[in-house]
């Protein structure tokens, strides 16, 4: 049994799956309260599914981008469980998990996450000849900068403000299929994780890092020593 955890944004989601098939799933609005709500809900989900913690044989976690503190809670919990249970751990990009449910449309899929202050986090994925590919890596941008890169009919998904949706539609017209207010569900995370686990492509609890797109290069701070 695999456990998937996604606390990257305000909506948290957890799921249990067996051989890529979802057995139980729970999504809820956690706001900024992931640290308080994650473990009790995890125990509740296990109880509902009549599964013991020791039956979990792999952990899949959404590694970002997303809220700094939300990611810390999710990745920290995933690492702790993987380490304690001595089981494999797989980190999956949040935007990839956001885009994956729409893979079968065959369209390029552009997940968008509101990053605040007029900025968005985005990437581009597409299922090409049966292969799920990342065409543009996760990055911080603005709608104005992103839209010129969209050359064909593209599906936009994610949980973003009506203002962002309107901006995308204004820039791209019919080229954009905008799904408003989609949420990431950990069930899809387990599917992505399962495909990596089958290949033996796993992360290590000591080295897996959250993906913080805003993290600046810390070299020489512009500050004089006092």
């Amino acid at each position: 049994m695999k456990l998937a955890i996604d606390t990257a944004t305000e909506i948290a989601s957890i799921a249990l799956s067996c051989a890529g098939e979802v057995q139980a799933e729970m999504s809820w609005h956690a706001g900024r309260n992931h640290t308080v709500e994650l473990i009790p809900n995890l125990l509740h989900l296990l109880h509902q599914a009549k599964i013991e913690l020791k039956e979990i044989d792999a952990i899949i976690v959404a590694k970002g981008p997303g809220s700094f503190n939300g990611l810390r809670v999710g990745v920290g919990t995933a690492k702790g469980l993987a380490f304690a249970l001595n089981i494999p751990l797989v980190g999956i990009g949040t935007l990839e998990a956001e885009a994956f449910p729409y893979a079968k449309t065959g369209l390029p899929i552009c997940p968008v996450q509101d990053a605040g202050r007029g900025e968005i986090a985005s990437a581009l994925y597409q299922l090409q000849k049966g292969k799920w590919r990342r065409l543009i890596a996760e990055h911080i941008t603005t709608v104005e900068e992103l839209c010129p890169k969209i050359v064909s009919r593209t599906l936009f998904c994610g949980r973003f403000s009506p203002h962002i949706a309107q901006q995308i539609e204004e820039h791209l017209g019919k080229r954009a299929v905008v799904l408003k207010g989609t949420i990431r569900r950990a069930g899809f995370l387990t599917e992505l994780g399962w495909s990596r686990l089958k290949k033996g492509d796993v992360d290590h609890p000591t080295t897996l890092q959250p993906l913080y797109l805003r993290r600046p290069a810390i070299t020489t701070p512009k500050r004089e020593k006092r």
Partner: protein
Amino acid sequence: MMNFISESPEETQRLGEELGRLAQPGDLFLLVGNLGTGKTCLTQGIAWGLGIEGYATSPSFVVVNQYRGRLPLYHIDLYRLDSIEEVIELGLDDYLYSEGVSVVEWAEKALAVLPKEHLLIEMNFLSDTSRNVVLKPSGERYVEMLSQLKQMAER
């Protein structure tokens, strides 16, 4: 840029209160100045201007205090932090990029990692009771805020 001379803590609070009234979601005030120049006093005013009742206390120890007013106020104090790495590790982005208003005391410790658009407020001693307050806007939003502040002052 705008220069303001405050002759008392009450005047500093009143300036803060005006700023609090003008504040919009996502606004960021960066406070720079030595101990005792009135940073917490100014923040108190901003809190009142946002309709927050009671007193804002210094978050030097806890680093972040959160208040609920017309908009959420995040009162952040970097005094206790020694390195820019420590500031980054705090995860302040969750506040700075939210829909609330953020006030950062001792902002000079982390200017390189704070959002580029902000209102920088420098506070300096003139005498025991008077202070020179310099408001420096970065970005259109804060230029607009200062022109509104000037209009309010002229009335």
